[in-house]
């Protein structure tokens, strides 16, 4: 039986290795066909900003890979509202992540769900396994 896995992303990209490591673990874990959710809180919300361009810092820009999560059946992406607001950001500043529902003739659906801290607490409470990065 599939377990519910949640990956909590709490760190900004590029300044440390956590964001990239988390993304790799998520992609590897997706092969095991579990019920996967991602949460982005605190500086983790910075991972999803659009328009990242790393040519000037000599690091790989891994932000395009978040768009592939839908292909990996990772389509529950929770972004915490309070964390966004504290950073002067809104959903418009983030990438538009979608997934395609094969059962509905590849209808495109939004992956990102904007949730309050209290709502996120309930989602986390419902998980079997929570991994924090």
């Amino acid at each position, binding site marked *: 039986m599939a377990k519910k896995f949640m990956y909590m992303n709490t*760190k*900004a*990209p*590029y*300044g*440390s290795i956590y964001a990239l490591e988390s993304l790799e673990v998520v992609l590897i874990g997706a092969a095991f066909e579990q019920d996967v959710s991602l949460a982005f809180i*605190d*500086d983790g919300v*910075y991972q999803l*900003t*659009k*328009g*990242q*361009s*790393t*040519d*000037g*810092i000599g*690091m790989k*820009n891994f*932000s395009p890979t978040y768009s592939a999560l839908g292909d990996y059946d990772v389509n529950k992406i929770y972004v915490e509202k309070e964390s966004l607001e*504290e*950073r*002067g*950001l809104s959903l418009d*500043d983030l990438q538009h992540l979608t997934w395609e529902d094969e059962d509905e003739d590849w209808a495109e659906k939004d992956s990102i769900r904007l949730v309050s801290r209290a709502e996120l607490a309930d989602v986390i409470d419902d998980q079997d396994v929570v991994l924090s990065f």
Partner: protein
Amino acid sequence: MTTLHTVNKSPFNSSAFDDCLGLAKSGSTVLLYEDGVYAATSGTKPADAIANTDGVTFAVLGPDLKARGVEGKIADGIKVVDYDGFVDLVAEHDKVHAWL
């Protein structure tokens, strides 16, 4: 003695930025780079604190802004520099205080 302060940690995740702001004297410069650049983005408490600090010059490293997709969110009055500009700042000041 003129000082260049450098901060490379997110202001939301470390006390480095607050510590630096509290101890930077008038006439000094604060350069934000790596995750420190988030302090320069508008609509945040750190950006308000920068706006309310008189006599201190604030600069931010452009390539780190671009990498993080926040180039368009930079608050008013903060100078964007490239790597050469970083070197110039180091040369122009008597010492560098790298905050951790």
